[in-house]
C-alpha cells in the first residue's frame, strides 16, 4: 500500500516530462491554475477524510489541511485578481484533477484503519510531489515576483504539512 504511487502524483510528474519540458515554459496564468488546482485536490481529499477517518489525529490533520489550503487558495485568488491574471486551464491541471478524482474513489472504498493509513500515506506522497514540483518547476518558472513569493510561502507551508503527515503516518504504524 505504501509503495503505490497515486495517480495524481503521476500527473504532477508530467511537469518534469519531456513533452512539457520541450514545450513553452509554463506561463503565470498556467502556474496559478496548477497551484490552485493542487490545493483544491487536497481540500477534497481532506473533506473525505473528515467524514471517513476513524483516528483522531488523522481527522485533526485533515481539518488542518482544509483550513490551510483554503487560506492559501484565498490568497492566490486575491493575488490573481489584483494582478488581473485569469488562471488558465492546462493539461497538467486537467490530468491532476482527473487522477485525483480516481484516487478519491479508490480511497472511498476503504474503511477504518485501512482508510486512515492509505489517506495519510497518500498525503505524504502528494505533498512530497507537489513540493518537488513547486521547487523545481513552478517557482523557477513564475515571472511575476508576487506570484513567485506566494508560491514560496506555499512551499514553506506544504513542507510543514509533509512533516506533519509523515509524523501521523509514523504514529499509525
Amino acid at each position, binding site marked *: 500500500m505504501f509503495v503505490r504511487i497515486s495517480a495524481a502524483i503521476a500527473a504532477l510528474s508530467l511537469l518534469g516530462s519531456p513533452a512539457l519540458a520541450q514545450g513553452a515554459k509554463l506561463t503565470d496564468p498556467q502556474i496559478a491554475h496548477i497551484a490552485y488546482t493542487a490545493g483544491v485536490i487536497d481540500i477534497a481529499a481532506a473533506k473525505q477524510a473528515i467524514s471517513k477517518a476513524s483516528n483522531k489525529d488523522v481527522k485533526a490533520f485533515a481539518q488542518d489541511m482544509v483550513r490551510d489550503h483554503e487560506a492559501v487558495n484565498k490568497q492566490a485568488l486575491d493575488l490573481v485578481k489584483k494582478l488581473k491574471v485569469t488562471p488558465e486551464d492546462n493539461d497538467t491541471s486537467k490530468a491532476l484533477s482527473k487522477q485525483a478524482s480516481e484516487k478519491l474513489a479508490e480511497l472511498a472504498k476503504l474503511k477504518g484503519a485501512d482508510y486512515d493509513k492509505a489517506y495519510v500515506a497518500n498525503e505524504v506522497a502528494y505533498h512530497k510531489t507537489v513540493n518537488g514540483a513547486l521547487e523545481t518547476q513552478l517557482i523557477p518558472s513564475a515571472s511575476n515576483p508576487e506570484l513567485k513569493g506566494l508560491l514560496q510561502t506555499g512551499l514553506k507551508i506544504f*513542507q510543514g504539512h509533509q512533516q506533519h503527515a509523515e*509524523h501521523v503516518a509514523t504514529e499509525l504504524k
Partner: protein
Amino acid sequence: MRPGRYLPVTAASVMAVLLSAAIAVPAHAATIQITIENMEFAPAEVSARVGDTIEWINKDVLVHTATARNGDFDITTPPKKTVTSVLKKAGTVEYYCRYHPNMKAVLRIEP
C-alpha cells in the same frame, strides 16, 4: 547568550525609568516579541520572567497557536495578527502549534 531578551529588556528598562513616576509597572516587566513566520517561531528559544508580556506576531496567512505542552497557556494567533499574553508561571515551557505540530519552540520563564 539571550539574544531574544537583551534588546527588549534594555528598551523596556529605559521606558520604565522614563515612566516610573506615572505608571505602576514592575520595573522588570518587559515586552518580548515572538514572530511566527513561514511555519516557524522566532526566536525558537526565548528567556523571560514572570510578569513579562509576549507579543505573538503572526505574519503567516494561516491561523496558528502557541500551546504549552504542560498546559500553562494556549494562545491562538489569527493570520496577520498580533496577540499579547502575560507570563504567569515560571518554568521551562515547551510549546507548539496545535495545527502544525512540527512548529516547536521553548520559553524559559524565570520567577
